[in-house]
């Protein structure tokens, strides 16, 4: 056996090799200050990985509800772009970072919650109550 093998017991392997997963950031409802360019870029990066809609207010006052699915960042705000889908439009749209005055994480975070343990607890409770066909159902399409 190698030194590496001797160094760890199976219990340690079990403990060490549990993938950590991703700690979800609670962004729902957040309105970042956007005090400078760095804050704007950071907040838009978070908007890109957010699994809910955001509301963007442009410098001309227009408000856009959007699901941001991509961003292409350039050296300046004018050549950095968000790519998004709006709820009532079929096509992909894009928007320059330079046009954005305000950002709000207004939509529900669809990736939050629903942990395995919650499911098992719910299952056991319903089973004990004699229920059948127990299961989680996808969110309604509203």
């Amino acid at each position: 056996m190698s030194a590496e093998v001797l160094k760890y017991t199976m219990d340690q392997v079990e403990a060490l090799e549990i993938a950590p997963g991703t700690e979800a950031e609670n962004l729902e409802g957040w309105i970042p200050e956007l005090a400078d360019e760095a804050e704007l870029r950071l907040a838009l990066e978070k908007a890109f990985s957010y699994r809910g809609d955001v509301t963007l207010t442009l410098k001309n006052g227009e408000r856009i509800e959007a699901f941001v699915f991509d961003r292409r960042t350039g050296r300046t705000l004018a050549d950095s772009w968000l790519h998004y889908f709006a709820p009532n439009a079929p096509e992909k749209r894009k928007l320059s970072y330079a046009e954005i005055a305000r950002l709000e994480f207004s939509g529900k975070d669809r990736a939050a919650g629903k942990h395995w343990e919650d499911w098992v607890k719910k299952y056991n409770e319903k089973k004990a109550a004699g229920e059948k066909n127990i299961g989680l159902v996808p969110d309604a399409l509203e």
Partner: protein
Amino acid sequence: MAIPVAQMWAVSSYVLKKRMAGVKKYPLVLMLEPLFRCNLACAGCGKVQYPPHILKKQLTVEECLGAMDEIMCPIVCVPGGEPLLHKDMPKIIEGLVARKRFVYLCTNALELKNRIDEFKPSVHFAFAVHLDGQREHHDYSVCREGSYDIAVEGIKEARKRGFRVITNSTLFDGADPNSARAFFDEMMGMGVEGMTISPGYSYEKAPDQDHFMGRAKTRKLFRGMLSNRKSSWKFNMSPLFLEFLMGDRHYECSPWSMPCFSIFGWQKPCYLMQEGYANSYQELLDSTTWENYGAASGNPKCANCMVSCGYEGTAVMDGFSSWKGFFAMARGTFSLYKDKAALKLLETPAKPAHRPAPLVKIKEPERALEEVGV
């Protein structure tokens, strides 16, 4: 053999052509995601957590066939979401089959019996039914009681009508290798053509983040499960990839080999991670810094990944790129992988983790590491 000879021929000649042309990065399997909407809400899935207006969107028939025409690789998998919720799915499949591609429609089979009349059997087309193990394991895994029985009914109906059917299983921490082996018996007894299995990937957006396995645990599980296998078990996968999962081979990731196309575009850098989108496969190749991905890169998002969409492509290319690889693949197809130490692994009770812990990547653990404490 679980993989049709025609498919093996198509893949081998495709890989050889690319090799002779000196092409280093190319697609083997198109992962075509026509929609994200699903009729299940599995805790370990990170694919379907979107606002309703995104879930209502779907690729058109033309967009799906256009993606294939762009890359023309030999195989296409159609996952989702649940593809059978797409009303034009039969037209999409028909178009892909007409192009002589080998098409795998990945479904949870809840709608299979309702829609099976709309499809035609073909050597180029198979239903890949998602089943994560025996009844209790599967129903728990997909968070819905009764889903196993519905899927099994769908499989039986599809087999009765002459369709090719394979199963597709994802295994998470705490999976019981003995139960998985019993599941293989059940599936082969049901007449499925082959099975595919993969460790779950720690999707950043999966609601449950505590049940993904690290690499040592993955190797331990797959070694216990796949060693000393029965001759009746058929896997619709590269035998070299299965050896990689069992800890017998070292491969690096080839994320470009199974590109994913969805309503957002060509996903960067791979099927599992979403770091942006390209407008074409060529743009995906040109604009992705590939050395930043794969276990060798040190990228923590890739540290635990041993998933087929990154590593099976490498195994396939290895198998068809040299005589050595080819013979290893042929040997693996017929070997039962006799292994006494692996038998002992089956005696160890499965221990699910119920808490997250900080990941410590053990430097290149030797295979014997997984035997410690047995």
